[in-house]
């Protein structure tokens, strides 16, 4: 079930909210857990068993590590078992087809295999479970003895299928004690409606432009069209994913949780390093805490540090998908971060901010080409078209058509992807003198946004969600 679906908005969410607030406090977690299982089973009736087994496995692994904490060797062995078991599960469902396809392509063999669809959210919930296991081993948290709380942590529906990846340490206390005030609920609803509007109004609209351009024959469009396509995708993936994250954070607040934000206006970055501090923050944090720092981080020799960065970014690429282009995309960012750290980082800081911003955005756009391309070959050809090789012309009527018919959409996208959009809303609401008028203005703005989103949902059938496949 998608947050941006009529079923979720008008049946699932209202029913869950009513039940959650009607039942006594002690039953709220049970309601939340049942709702989360229904939410997942709606789209993945078969794989709900896998998720439940993963919950049981990590629950007992956490207890086992704790029971062995007096014997470091045994505790370490238990940790390795838990990590390997989780990675094998993720690897089997996500990567074994890729591995066999790669073998079939490289070797003179044709190994047939039975393929299974990717369980939705497996990358997210496996990473959450791994963070718990590693934090228990490091004694940063005590293992959760109540399986209800633990199951809630793994499969809470607001962040189950698309993150943000929540660390157990961050919500351990909230699983037991949390409060929902009117103010917090209102903030949550605000976040949710902003996220919904980002997803439905902006992401879906620019996504349609991108789909049209991506459907054109390579070589049949101009340089400008190629850039319009790439920029459209950049906006689509940002509003799609950050919109979904905002909805998750908002829903969390409505049920009393506090999740950290996953995006911080990444397209306003002045360097690639800054971009990755602002994009998918929960994933970067996870890799920093559980891979980069254990590998030695930057407290080692220069060559080792470079190696650490490249390993982490290759894994980040692979996390996004089992394909060579994702691996390449990760490596591309790894190399850029190494170059910013050791080659041109200081020189970059001396440049005017406009130049730094253009530098960052051009590199990010090139990165998205690897991300959206079905293969590396396609990515190279598309990049060629963006820089004139294999393009039909520099600009043509087609490119002008896309720009002239969608200029308002792109203007909204630029505003929405910077802090200007949100501060504009705050300014409109804050321009009224008394609190009553402010509340009324906020209601008009947010309900207006919600109604427009619903109108889009009802009239448009195009409602994909890009991060589903991760």
């Amino acid at each position, binding site marked *: 079930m998608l947050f941006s679906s009529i079923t979720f908005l008008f049946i699932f969410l209202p029913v869950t909210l009513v039940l959650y607030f009607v039942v006594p406090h002690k039953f709220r977690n049970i309601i939340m857990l049942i709702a989360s299982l229904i939410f997942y089973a709606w789209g993945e009736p*078969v794989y709900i*068993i*896998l998720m439940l*087994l*993963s919950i*049981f*496995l990590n629950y*007992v*692994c956490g*207890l*086992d590590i704790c*029971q062995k904490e007096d014997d470091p060797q045994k505790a370490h062995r*238990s940790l390795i*078992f*838990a990590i390997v*078991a989780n990675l094998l*599960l993720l690897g*089997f469902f996500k990567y074994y*087809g890729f591995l066999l396809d790669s073998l079939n392509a490289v070797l003179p063999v044709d190994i*047939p*295999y*039975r*393929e*299974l*669809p*990717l369980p939705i959210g497996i990358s997210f919930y496996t990473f959450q479970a791994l963070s718990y296991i590693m934090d228990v081993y490091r004694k940063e948290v005590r293992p959760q003895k109540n399986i209800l709380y633990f199951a809630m942590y793994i499969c809470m529906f607001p962040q189950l299928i698309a993150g943000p990846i929540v660390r157990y340490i961050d919500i351990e206390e909230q699983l037991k004690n949390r409060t929902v005030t009117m103010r917090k609920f209102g903030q949550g609803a605000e976040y949710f409606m902003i996220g919904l509007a980002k997803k439905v109004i902006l992401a879906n609209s620019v996504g349609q432009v991108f789909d049209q351009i991506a459907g054109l024959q390579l070589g049949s469009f101009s340089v400008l069209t190629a850039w319009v396509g790439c920029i459209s995708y950049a906006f689509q993936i940002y509003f799609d994913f950050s919109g979904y994250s905002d909805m998750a954070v908002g829903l969390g607040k409505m049920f009393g949780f506090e999740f950290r934000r996953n995006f911080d206006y990444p397209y306003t970055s002045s360097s690639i390093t800054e971009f990755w501090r602002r994009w998918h923050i929960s994933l970067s944090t996870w890799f920093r805490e559980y891979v980069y720092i254990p590998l030695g981080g930057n407290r080692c020799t220069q060559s080792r540090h470079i190696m650490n960065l490249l390993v982490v970014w290759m894994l980040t690429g692979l996390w996004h998908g089992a394909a060579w282009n994702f691996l390449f995309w990760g490596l591309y960012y790894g190399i850029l971060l190494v170059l910013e750290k050791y080659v041109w980082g200081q020189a970059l800081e001396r440049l005017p901010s406009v130049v730094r911003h253009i530098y960052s955005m051009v590199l990010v756009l090139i990165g998205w080409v690897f991300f959206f391309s079905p293969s590396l070959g396609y990515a190279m050809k598309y990049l060629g078209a963006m820089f004139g090789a294999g393009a039909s012309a520099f600009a043509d009527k087609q490119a002008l058509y896309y720009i002239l018919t969608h200029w308002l959409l792109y203007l909204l996208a630029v505003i929405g992807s910077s802090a200007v959009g949100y501060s504009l809303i705050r300014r409109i609401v804050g321009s009224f003198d008394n609190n009553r008028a402010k509340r009324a203005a906020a209601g008009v703005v947010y309900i207006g946004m919600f109604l427009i989103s619903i109108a889009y949902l009802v009239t448009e059938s195009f409602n*994909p969600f890009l991060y589903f*496949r991760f």
Partner: protein
Amino acid sequence: MMDRELNGTGSRRAAGRMNRPGIAEVAKYVVMAVIIVYIVLLMIYASGSTRSFNEIEKAVESVLDTDNLKKAEGQGLKRYYGLNSADYEGVMLYTSESSMSAEEVLLIKVKNEGQMKRVKEAVEKRLANRKNDFEGYAPKEVQLLEQSQLTVRGKFLFLAIAPRAAEYKDTFAKSL
């Protein structure tokens, strides 16, 4: 002396307790074993296949009773299901020669998993429409529709509305 013996027995017991696996340790191996069984069952009953569309199509056609069925061309998928056959890796559609019969067999291999949701919705819509068409005057056809076999295995979708639908579905599953 007795104390020493008691202490000795006690420490051996304690050592035994230390070496004995705890409930959590046993449970993790049990859960892992259940996961492996679950994956094996998934592979048998829910997996798709990398076999080509033509291989699966041939296997299904080999058991089809085509006395009352005719193979529809590409336009058939558009006409009956609202889908463009060019969008998919392969399409095989058999429809009844008689408008009074609900018999139909459909096999589609999608190019990517993202297409499957739309295809499945279209098939479910078609089934609902056909039930509406026959409701009230052709109870046998309605029964055929109710006993129809719809299954999704990886990138393949298979639908059989026929008296031998279960057999067709078995053949499809075995051919993967």
